[in-house]
């Protein structure tokens, strides 16, 4: 991987200190690459090591990208959540727990979980209802999912 990098970008080869081109490299490449370029004892990667380095590079890129959006807001059910929900609708702790379990198991069959605040409390029942058939949700299970989403949303 490293050799490939230098073949594609010959300007990354080490240069004597003080040359002007060094500052261009500073601006053009990340710190880790700069260290490689400055190191006169560059290791030549064997063909057997290339897949491992490729895997690590992909993993590093993915970790960077995960930083952009990496949250799943599915708070656990609490007695306070059930008490607050009971004031608005006829739900108990068991129903909210069932709703959370179904939400995190059935919905991810087709898509990732959307942020609960992405849609309004008025929109959620229709959204869940429109996909309940695809998720094999029975009416009572569908109601439990809606109840959990609304309770979690109200907790924010």
């Amino acid at each position: 991987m490293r050799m490939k990098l230098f073949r594609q970008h010959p300007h990354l080869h080490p240069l004597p200190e003080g040359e002007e081109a060094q500052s261009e490299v500073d601006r053009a490449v990340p710190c880790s690459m700069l260290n490689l370029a400055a190191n006169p004892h560059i290791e030549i990667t064997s063909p057997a090591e290339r897949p491992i380095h490729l895997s690590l590079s992909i993993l590093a890129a993915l970790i960077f990208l995960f930083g952009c959006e990496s949250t799943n807001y599915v708070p656990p059910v609490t007695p306070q959540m059930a008490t607050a929900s009971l004031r608005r609708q006829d739900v108990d702790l068991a129903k909210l727990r069932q709703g959370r379990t179904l939400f995190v198991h059935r919905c991810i069959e087709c898509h990732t979980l959307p942020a609960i605040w992405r849609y309004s409390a008025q929109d959620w029942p229709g959204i869940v209802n429109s996909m309940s058939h695809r998720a094999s949700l029975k009416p009572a299970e569908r109601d439990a999912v809606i109840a959990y989403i609304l309770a979690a949303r109200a907790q924010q």
Partner: protein
Amino acid sequence: MSKRALSIFALWILPAMCAFAGVRHFTFLYEAPTSPPSSIELENTVTWKHGAGWNDVFIREEIEIGITDRLQLGIYPLDWSHHSDGGLQYNGGAVELIYNLSNPVVDPVGVSLYQEISVARQHFESESKLIAQKNFGRWILDYNVTLEAEWESKGLAEQSGELQQALGASYEISPRLSVGIEFLHEFIFPDWHDEVTNVFVGPNVSYRRHEWFVTVTALAQASDTTDEPDLQLRTIFGIGF
């Protein structure tokens, strides 16, 4: 069981199984979530492999059934392939079971175990897989490690094996569209002695709407193995009944 009894059983069971089994975000990797109970889906997989002077096409049909919230059954009644040098051939049938152990959203890692048994004339194959997945918001990060053992020829005398690890990431642009990348690292052991290492990497795209989905992956070989394909293109089309 008589034909009448079978018809009554089918009429009773089919309406209960009218649901969608699930979308595939990857084609060379399996995902940890299993199909909802009582769901049924037909998946058609077409793989085109292109090498120096040769082209092979593999076609597989799968009926995917959700048994419980954690257990999924897959039946492959049709498995065909067409080879540049050998023409069309039937590769037999297969059965797979996937058992889900943990959830990729609420647990630290979503894990499932996969076992497939494939049988044909003078051919027996076992494929075991560990599936690990984590969902981060709109991202799905997936990892599979697979061990395949194959026995073929007269008396199943020829043996070979393969160890494979695969890594994939998928980003959901919208609830209907995802794009991602898949990475395959294969260790092939002909006769369980020699070792051939292959690496493939490439992008994928997945689109879903109503009761169907389609996912396409194009993989290019990143290693330098002459007998292996330079390019692989796999399409999975799934439809729920």
